[in-house]
């Protein structure tokens, strides 16, 4: 197995700070990062990811592997929620199934940047345009989730709970975190094209500071994830199993699609991580608004309490092992 990769991953500052947060909760330390400080870091990270992605996208253009990769990403974010939905329906009702399915079809930006840090650490190159795939995968999954409710929900749903299409599109496209990510990407693109000195002057903020801010944020994520664990236990073994099995399954689909697309090993890992990760920001907000019947504790504790830690600690190095076996290094 890839224990050496796992170990190398665990011994980096972001993962170590994540553990520090988890252990704080486990030992009942009163360490806390009060609101709205986590929001500061989450806004900062989205802005910086987007901006840097935009710079890279301007460099690479839409030629080569860019358009096929982005297209494949959109397809994945439409297909994965469908698969998830049918698996979840074994045990859960339509509302909860659709909400969780949407979360797993969407992505987690912090998982993505942890994978980027992992690749940098391993010296494996990857392309900045993958951020475009990241930015584009949030909305379709939400729309699929809401569509599933619209189609599969019992007819006797009260009038007040009729789906309003305008709201659905609004929630899926203009959610704060989706919007900031896409907007910053676009700004990065424009800046790279028209104002190179602006790129340089942003570098200390969006570039240099990034790794440290990521560590600080992961410390908080460790605390939050650990606080979610008790409600995960209440959710039952079916959901616990789902939260670990599903990312692996999605990563598997991802690696084969990556092979088909002819992605480089670095890009292939990032693509797998996009498939494997689940959203705990944009999607829950949209679901809370439009499907109040779904229990938020279900979709938050699976994605945040289990899938997220699993992916960043064990998943990423394991997926890298798969990449090393299946994806040839370009020469």
């Amino acid at each position, binding site marked *: 197995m890839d224990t050496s990769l796992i170990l190398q991953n665990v011994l980096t500052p972001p993962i170590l700070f994540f553990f520090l947060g988890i252990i704080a909760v486990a030992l009942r330390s009163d360490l806390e990062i009060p*609101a*709205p400080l*986590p*929001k500061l870091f*989450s806004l900062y990270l989205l802005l910086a990811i987007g901006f840097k992605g935009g710079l890279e996208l301007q460099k690479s253009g839409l030629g080569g592997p860019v358009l096929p990769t982005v297209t494949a990403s959109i397809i994945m974010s439409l297909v994965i929620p469908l698969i998830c939905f049918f698996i979840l329906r074994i045990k859960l009702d339509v509302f909860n199934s659709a909400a969780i399915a949407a979360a797993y079809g969407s992505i987690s930006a912090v998982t993505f940047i942890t994978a980027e840090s992992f690749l940098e650490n391993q010296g494996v190159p990857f392309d900045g345009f993958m951020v475009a795939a990241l930015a584009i995968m949030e909305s379709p999954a939400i729309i699929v989730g809401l569509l599933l409710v619209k189609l599969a929900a019992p007819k006797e749903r009260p009038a*007040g*709970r009729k789906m309003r299409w305008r709201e659905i599109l609004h929630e899926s496209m203009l*959610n*704060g*975190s989706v919007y900031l990510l896409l907007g910053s990407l676009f700004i990065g693109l424009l800046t790279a094209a028209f104002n190179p000195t602006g790129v340089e002057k942003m570098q200390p903020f969006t570039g240099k500071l990034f790794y440290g801010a990521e560590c600080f944020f992961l410390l*908080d994520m460790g*605390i*939050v994830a650990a*606080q979610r664990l008790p409600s995960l236990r209440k959710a039952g073994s079916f959901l616990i199993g789902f939260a670990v099995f599903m990312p692996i399954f999605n990563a598997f689909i991802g690696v084969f699609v990556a092979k088909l697309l002819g992605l480089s090993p670095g890009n292939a890992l990032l693509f797998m991580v996009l498939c494997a990760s689940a959203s*705990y*920001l*944009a999607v*829950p*907000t949209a679901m*809370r*608004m439009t499907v*109040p019947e779904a229990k*938020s*504790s279900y979709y*938050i504790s699976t994605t*945040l309490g289990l899938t997220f830690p699993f992916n960043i600690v064990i998943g990423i190095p394991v997926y890298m092992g798969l990449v090393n076996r299946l994806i040839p290094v370009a020469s």
Partner: protein
Amino acid sequence: MKRLDLVFSERELEPMLKSLEKSNVPGYTVTKHVTGRGPERVVSEDMEFTGLGANAHVIVFCEQELLGKIKENIQPLLNYYGGVAYVSEANQL
């Protein structure tokens, strides 16, 4: 006069305040970032970060007569998204 206390999810704050204004309340006071628990759900502080939002606590001092209209306007929202509404006596100082 009456004092009305409303507690519900922050994400419904805007439509709720619009409802209150439609009911012609003379004013209201809003405290955000409030947490709590109802019979089924727990609203904890870390939900603010995921964007789910904590609760808002809204206080309205108004005449008894307004209560019927207010109830009519906000009850659908409370039913749909959850939340509580309590009334007590109050008098201007």
